[in-house]
């Protein structure tokens, strides 16, 4: 139509007939892009720039000079304290993420396959889904504070309960034990997010052509075989999506450890995001180091995501090649 209206002879007539509404589309997406450019893209570039400057303290935010990669050197100079705490934080984050992610994806897969299994016909599915998803609706801050008081010491609900049922005689200080503190943090992340992952999995499974399941049923596949041979391979893209979003979310974990443990005991629940926060916004305002740490974290996430998608995609390619032959 665009081409037709370019013809001068018929242009006026045509113009009236086919008014293009295309441009309104841009108006509708404009708010998002404006907000995105101002509040996301610009800060991202500003972070990159700040990571190369000497901007320590508010007075230097606007008036700083580029000093090159010194801030990165601090993070990669493995003898220094900054480097020590950055990598220790990264290690803590990865441990807490793994212990949240494996049960999360496992639980979500099991529940999703149960909810979609035509042979099981679970009752009250809607009710279960709502209850399982519920923790995700509450803000992390509230949950952090809630668990902090639940697992408090020496007088708190969990300790009182444990003593009353005779599980222990003296109160246990959960937040002074590395295992317990990390475990509780992982548990909260798992508990908050497995419902969400499950919903996405269900959507993925429902996207599979039902003819496949019916054929499997006719051929006499067991539930287990259907799951391993049909469901799992076909929701691989959804699994990849979950893996990557969870990785990004997990490595930038902040609110729960910040509110619940403040990195205690002995810095073992301090996450990278908390490290960045400490450098940037607690008293010293080392924005340069905080930005450099953010950029390093960004790099780590990008590399991990690429590796994950490479691992998951390669097999697909091999398969599709085989199919072509």
């Amino acid at each position, binding site marked *: 139509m665009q081409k037709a209206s370019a013809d001068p002879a018929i242009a006026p007539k045509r113009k009236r007939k086919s008014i293009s509404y295309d441009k309104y589309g841009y108006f509708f997406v404009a708010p998002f892009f404006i907000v995105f450019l101002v509040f996301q893209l610009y800060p991202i570039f500003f972070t990159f720039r700040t990571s190369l400057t000497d901007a320590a303290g508010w007075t230097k*935010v606007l008036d700083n000079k580029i000093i090159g990669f010194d801030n990165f050197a601090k993070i990669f100079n493995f003898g220094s*304290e900054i480097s020590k705490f950055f990598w220790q934080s990264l290690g803590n984050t990865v441990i807490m993420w793994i212990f949240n992610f494996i049960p999360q994806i496992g639980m979500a897969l099991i529940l999703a396959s149960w909810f979609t299994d035509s042979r099981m016909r679970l009752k009250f599915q809607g009710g279960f889904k709502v209850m399982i998803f519920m923790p995700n609706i509450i803000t992390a801050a509230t949950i952090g504070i809630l668990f902090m*008081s639940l697992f408090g010491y020496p007088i708190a609900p969990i300790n009182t309960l444990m003593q009353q049922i005779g599980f222990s005689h003296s109160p246990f200080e959960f937040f002074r034990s590395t295992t317990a503190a990390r475990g509780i943090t992982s548990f909260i992340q798992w508990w908050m997010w497995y419902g969400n992952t499950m919903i996405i999995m269900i959507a993925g499974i429902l996207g599979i052509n039902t003819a496949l399941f019916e054929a499997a049923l006719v051929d006499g596949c067991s539930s287990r075989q259907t799951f391993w041979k049909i469901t799992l391979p076909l929701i691989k893209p959804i699994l990849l999506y979950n893996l990557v979003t969870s990785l990004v979310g997990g490595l930038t974990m902040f609110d729960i450890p910040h509110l619940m443990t403040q990195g205690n005991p002995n810095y073992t629940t301090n996450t990278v995001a908390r490290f960045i926060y400490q450098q940037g916004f607690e*008293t*010293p305002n080392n924005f340069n180091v905080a930005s450099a740490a953010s950029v390093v974290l960004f790099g780590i996430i990008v590399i991990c995501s690429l590796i994950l998608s490479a691992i998951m995609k390669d097999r697909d390619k091999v398969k599709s090649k085989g199919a072509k032959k």
Partner: protein
Amino acid sequence: MKKVVSLLMVLMLLVGCVSFAAAEEEIVLNVWSFTNELEGMIEKYYAPSHPNVKINYTIYPTDGGEYTSKVDNIMAAAAASDEAPDIFTLEAAFVKKYVNSPVTADLAKVGITEEDVAAAIPVMKQIGTNTATGELKGLSWQATPGALMYRASLAEKYLGVKTPEEFQAKVADWDLFMETAAEVNEKSEGATKMVVGAGDIWNAFNFGREQGWVVDGKLVIDPILYDYLDLAVELEQDDLSNKGNAWTEAWFLGMKSDTTLCFFLPTWGLHYTLKPNCGYTTNDKMNDAEMKAACEADGGTYGDWRMVAGPVGYSWGGTWIGANDAKVAAASDAKKAAIKDFILFFTMSEEFLYTYAKDSGDFVGSNAVVDKILAEGGTPNPFLGGQDHYTIFAEAANLANGSIMTDYDEKMNSLWSDHVTTPYSKGEVDLDTAIANFKAQVTAQFPELIVE
């Protein structure tokens, strides 16, 4: 036609507003703060007597460092602009950061003299003073000295102590304090502990230091802090405390039940923390009679508390008023006078402070007014069984030494507690490791400090 007429009327209104404003020649002061406390005081006490001063009051909460970020930001970018504050308030957590930096004005620049502030309580004045230059940069309408609150009935039962004077004799220094702690634990067979945890005595104990956290750009661990650690170990490992932290369930339980004998609390802690938590159903909206009734109904501690100075004079918290140096430098004489008047009105005016103290029960920052209230018989407090809290606080206020406060206190205190006191007192690490961990954290977070 109607449109034209209405437009004209609107225009006339606008012109009217503008011309009225111009005619009065009022002075506009931008005031920034983090709560509405000062705003309420301005409306109630200041505004009626100062019709020609217009206050633009702005509040940014301290949560997540929003207030300090806003202040830092505007001071870095546009300190002399119209949006920037002329006057801003400073909390104990960050007052030193600002009075030690050039953004706050030396109050002498607006004409506040030594004589004007002679009656100010020394510790509050000390904290409001630039450590390096000695310029006075912040003043406070209140003083926040701390004292030791204890349960009269428990003290009598376990220690045979009948009066606050006798109790003070048992806690006059830290050695006696620990002996008493052991005695309480023994006589009560572990039912009552001296304090909730080692963190409780920190706010008082750290005022016994001779040097602050940072001296000449160097990290200093005052030798007395090692004594504190010994004390913390005893409290934790010899079962002399409830082993809980401040602001947790165990802490609040200690206020309403017989599990804890003492609390170290300042002026605001008495009124806003201890009192509302003295019973199981009490809250901060109740008046004295309601609290008493609630405690009688379900076994609270109302009226059973007494107050003594304790082992050391200390101060905890507070709010200071400071002026923006850039705006003061650019201000007209009339405006400077208005800034001076504003600060002195709230911090030194005997008439105002006296009325305010009578209305609110707050402990005010002028010794002249404190003396006046004491001379009139003080403020018998039914919560303290009729004891007068002004006398004890006045004594503590003049004992506390504010010269050890530094810009770093808040962060250092929390690092010290997280990496030294807690792990060491619980026997998780040895002392050398704890100190090394603490120093490593300081090095990572404050690259500008020399850590030896």
